[in-house]
C-alpha cells in the first residue's frame, strides 16, 4: 500500500481543530471527577454503613461496566424517560457535550476514589498514632497527616487515570461530538484512508500523553521534595 503523506499533512490541522474539545472534556471531567472522588472517598471511609455501602455499589457499577455503555445509557437512554426531559438537568443532558462530561465524570470519579483510598490506606499507622499522641483531633490528623502523605502515595496511580481519561474522551465521538476522534472518523469516512489518518491521530494523542506524564512527574518530584529519594 501507499502511505499518503500529503493526506496526513492535510488532515493533521483539521484534526487539531478538535483538540480544544478534547482538552475541555479532559479538564472539565477531570476536575469534576476528582471532586466527586473526594466526596466518595470520604463517604467510603466514614465508617458509617449507610454512607459506605451506596458508595461501594456506585464504584462497583461504574468500574464494572464499559464506559461506552455508560455514555450510551446517558446519551440515548435517559431522554427516553419523560421526567428526564422535563427536569432541570435536561439543558445539560440535551447537549452531547453535557452527556459526555457527565459520563466521563461519573466514570473517572469511581476509579479515582479507589485510587485515593489506596493512598489513604497506605499511610503508616504509626504516624497517625503519633498525631494522636500530640493531641491532634481526628479531623486534624486526617487533614495534616493523612492527606499530604496519601496524595503523594496516590499520585502515580492517579496520573495513570488521567491518561486513561484522556483516551476515553475519544469515545465522545460516538455521540456526535467532533473532538479529534470525531473529526478523524469523518475524514476516514470521506477518504477511505484509515491507516494514515488514525496513525496521525495516534501521534497527537501520544504527544498529549507525554505532556500529562511530564506534568505529573514534576508534581510528584515537588511533593516529595522533603522526602529522601528512595530510588
Amino acid at each position: 500500500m501507499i502511505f499518503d503523506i500529503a493526506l496526513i499533512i492535510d488532515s493533521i490541522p483539521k484534526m487539531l481543530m478538535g483538540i480544544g474539545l478534547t482538552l475541555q472534556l479532559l479538564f472539565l471531567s477531570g476536575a469534576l471527577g476528582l471532586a466527586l472522588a473526594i466526596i466518595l472517598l470520604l463517604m467510603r471511609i466514614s465508617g458509617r454503613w449507610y454512607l459506605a455501602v451506596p458508595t461501594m455499589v456506585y464504584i462497583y457499577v461504574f468500574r464494572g461496566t464499559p464506559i461506552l455503555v455508560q455514555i450510551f445509557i446517558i446519551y440515548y437512554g435517559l431522554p427516553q424517560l419523560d421526567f428526564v426531559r422535563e427536569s432541570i438537568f435536561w439543558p445539560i443532558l440535551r447537549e452531547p457535550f453535557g452527556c459526555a462530561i457527565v459520563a466521563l465524570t461519573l466514570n473517572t470519579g469511581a476509579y479515582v476514589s479507589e485510587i485515593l483510598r489506596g493512598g489513604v490506606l497506605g499511610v503508616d499507622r504509626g504516624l497517625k498514632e503519633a498525631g494522636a499522641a500530640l493531641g491532634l483531633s481526628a479531623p486534624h490528623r486526617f487533614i495534616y497527616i493523612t492527606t499530604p502523605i496519601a496524595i503523594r502515595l496516590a499520585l502515580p496511580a492517579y496520573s495513570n487515570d488521567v491518561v486513561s481519561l484522556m483516551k476515553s474522551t475519544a469515545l465522545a465521538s460516538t455521540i456526535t461530538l467532533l473532538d479529534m476522534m470525531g473529526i478523524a472518523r469523518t475524514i476516514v469516512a470521506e477518504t477511505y484512508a484509515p491507516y494514515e489518518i488514525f496513525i496521525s491521530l495516534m501521534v497527537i494523542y501520544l504527544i498529549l500523553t507525554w505532556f500529562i506524564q511530564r506534568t505529573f512527574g514534576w508534581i510528584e518530584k515537588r511533593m516529595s521534595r522533603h522526602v529522601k529519594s528512595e530510588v
Partner: protein
Amino acid sequence: MRKLLAVMTAAVAVFAWSAQVPASAETLRVGMECTYAPFNFKNADGELDGYDVDVAKGVAGLIGADLEFVCQKWDGMIPALLANKFDLIIASMSITEKRLEKMDFSDTYRISVGRLVGKKDSGWELFDDAGKPIPANFAGLKVGLERATTYSDWFENELPEAEVVLYDSNEALYLDLVNGRTDMIMTNPMKAHLRFLSKEDGAGFEFVSPQIDERKYFGIGVGIGLRKGNDELKARLNAALKTLTEDGSLEQYALKYFPFAIHQ
C-alpha cells in the same frame, strides 16, 4: 442400482429436453435478492412481492415476455448477470459509474433522493415554491445527518447556514430527533417512512421538504441492469418503463408500500 441409474438418466434427459425447448414467448430471467422488503421479498404466502417485482411484471407484460425470477445474493449479483445466470437485474440496484463499466442499465424506475423530516406544524419556511431551499431560514437549525453520506455533502455545500450534527447510524438519527436534540434530519424518504414515520415514535413528525434530487449529489437512481451489447432489449425496456410511468402504474406500485411515488 441399475434401475436407479436408469431413472436418473431419464430424469436428466427430461430436464435437458425441457431446458432446450424454446418457450412459446421470450423468457426473461430476472435476478433479485428476494429478501429486500419492500422492494423484493417473499410475502406471507411465499410468493415474490414488492416494488421491484411489480416493475418486472409490468415490464414483462408490456414487452410480451415470460418471467422467471432467480434469487441471488447481493454480492454475487453482477457476476451472476455477467455469467448469464439471468438476463436482468431488477433488484433496487443504483446506477453508478463503476457499475456502468461492467454492465448496462435501463432508465431509472426509482429515484435517489433525500428528504427532510421534522416536527409536524413547525411553521418553518424552508423551501420556496420552486422547491429550492431558502438558506437564511436554516440558520440556527440543528440538522441530524449520517456521517459522510450524500446528504451531508449536500448540506455542507448547499446550506452551510444550518448546524449539522453527524451520526453513525440511521436509527440514532430518529432517536435524537424524537429526543429533541435535533430540529430535523435528512435521509432517504423510503427508509424514513418504513423505519420511523409509519411507527409510533414518528407520529408527531412529517416530511418538511420536497424530494431533493440534485444529481450531482444523489446520483441517477435505480435502473434495470442488463449485460452490455443488448441495445435492442434495452430500448424495449426503456419504452416499457416510459409507458409504466405515464399510465400511472409505477405510482400505483409505490403506493402499495409508501404514501408517495418513488419514481422520477
